[in-house]
């Protein structure tokens, strides 16, 4: 086993383990913190794939946003923030079966891909990956349109939030 395989297995275990904890823990705030661990694991995976930019953005955007989620969890829920009811419904075996089927389908699909066993090509240090990503995001042949559409969507959400927060103007 190479070092990167060991790191991959460890971070995969971290992601799956903490994702499980997110849905099974009874304390809402703990769920938010386990989510941090899971997202951090994803950032490690990006790092392993030599996508440094994505790894750092993952931490800035997702883990940074958890702080806000945390506040909402504290302010908008009951004082105890602890769920005492049963954690499953009667139909959970059906859901588990569906989940397993989806997982099996995904595994089947991934194994069917031609490049599945290929090891990642090491990017030489002098290649400017961030610059290439930036160029791709604004060049019309690549991702300029999706990038702009996403920006407009976010702008709309921003304006909507400001409108709702400002409330009704006094006549």
């Amino acid at each position, binding site marked *: 086993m190479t*070092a990167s395989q060991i790191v991959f297995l460890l971070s995969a275990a971290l992601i799956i383990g903490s994702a499980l904890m997110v849905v099974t823990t009874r304390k809402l*705030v*703990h769920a938010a*913190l386990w989510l*941090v661990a899971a997202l951090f694991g994803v950032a490690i995976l990006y790092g392993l794939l030599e996508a*440094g*930019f994505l790894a*750092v*953005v993952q*931490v*800035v955007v997702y*883990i*940074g946003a*958890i*702080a*806000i989620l*945390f*506040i909402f969890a*504290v302010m908008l829920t009951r004082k105890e923030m602890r769920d005492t009811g049963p954690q499953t419904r009667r139909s959970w075996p059906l859901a588990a079966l569906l989940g397993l089927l989806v997982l099996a389908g995904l595994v089947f699909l991934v194994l069917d891909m031609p490049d599945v066993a290929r090891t990642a090509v090491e990017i030489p240090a002098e290649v*400017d*990956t*961030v610059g290439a990503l930036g160029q791709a995001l604004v060049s019309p042949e690549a991702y300029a349109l999706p990038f702009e559409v996403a920006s407009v969507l976010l702008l709309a959400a921003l304006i909507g939030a400001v409108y709702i927060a400002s409330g009704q103007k006094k006549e």
Partner: protein
Amino acid sequence: MNLWNDPINFIAGWLRALLTGWGLSLDLAKIFIMLVGVGVLIVGSLVLAIFLVWVERKVVARFQDRVGPNRIGPYGLIQPFADIIKLIIKEDITPTTADKVIYNLAPVLALASVLFLWAVLPLASNIYGVDLNVAALYLVAAGALGTLAIIMGGWASNNKYALLGAFRMVATMISYEIPMVVVLLIPTLLAGTMSFRGIVESQAGAWYVLMAPLAMLIFLISAVAELGRAPFDLNEAESEIIAGFHIEYTGMKFGLFYAGELLHAFTFGGFVALLFFGGYQFFGLEKLGPLVAVTIFLAKAMFGYWVIMWIKYTMPRIRIDHLLAFNWKFLTPLALILLVVTALLHKLLAGLPLWGITLIMFLTNVLIAWVTVEILRAYGRKQRQAEEVLAPAGQH
């Protein structure tokens, strides 16, 4: 490759030869050397933090017309060690209603989020932890982890003052991150890279403080906000919420928060130095050797730290609505305008010699500052007049 010109690689090469000579495989030796490097960097910055305790106490004393620590050792230099012994032998209290794991994790994460930053600080052209090509964003990411540490501490203490402090911290951090990210883009686009080493190297001709003085000011202000220091220290406002998020922490756990805060302030002094004041460069003096360059960088970082202390001990605390209004209605629009103007000028002036670009950019910054001040003055006048209509002079 010798000890004076390239100390890190010299020592690493020597260690590698030693370890492989002992029969270790090359890969293991490399991992071991990296761990040693990380250890040295962490221990070095923590020892620096001990020294910073003394600096902070001495400087605040001078600002407040006192002498400061002067009893133990020459100039009170041994004082921090007495402080540490006191912190270590204090009773370590965890409140019974606290969330134990998160409560104990928070100070560790708070200090770690600062130590993360040291990984990307280029101390000299060949002394640095790692030369990330996304270092400017990494700086913001480490800040996000710092916020998380504070809210974890504030929530897990199960104390309403601690929670209030944590809430205030998040409100401050979320808002001041925006102007900080925007002005981080200005050195990035001037240098054409996000790597800190690249940014420092590209300032060989002219420091960016000459091309973007306003960006430097905005970065400094949002850095002080991110540090949670006065005038933005709402998260631990002693007169309102006692000590904010770290109210329940005792002994060395409090010590970790405290050391983290001082080291954070010094580190941001270093970031101001490397983004806007040429980092380890000082008119060619850094070419004498990496150790000279490290000294130059640390001196500049210390100056930045001193300015942050100067602000802290001079300004009164800002009310939270003023703090947020200052950010959203003033800093953020100004930062965005600066970014657009700098980007346009950088492209338009591409053919000019360096001094021409620098001069025009400096004058543009002065113009923007003047217009801003005029707008603020007009706004202030309007507000005063509105108040005088409500309550005519002499009736207060």
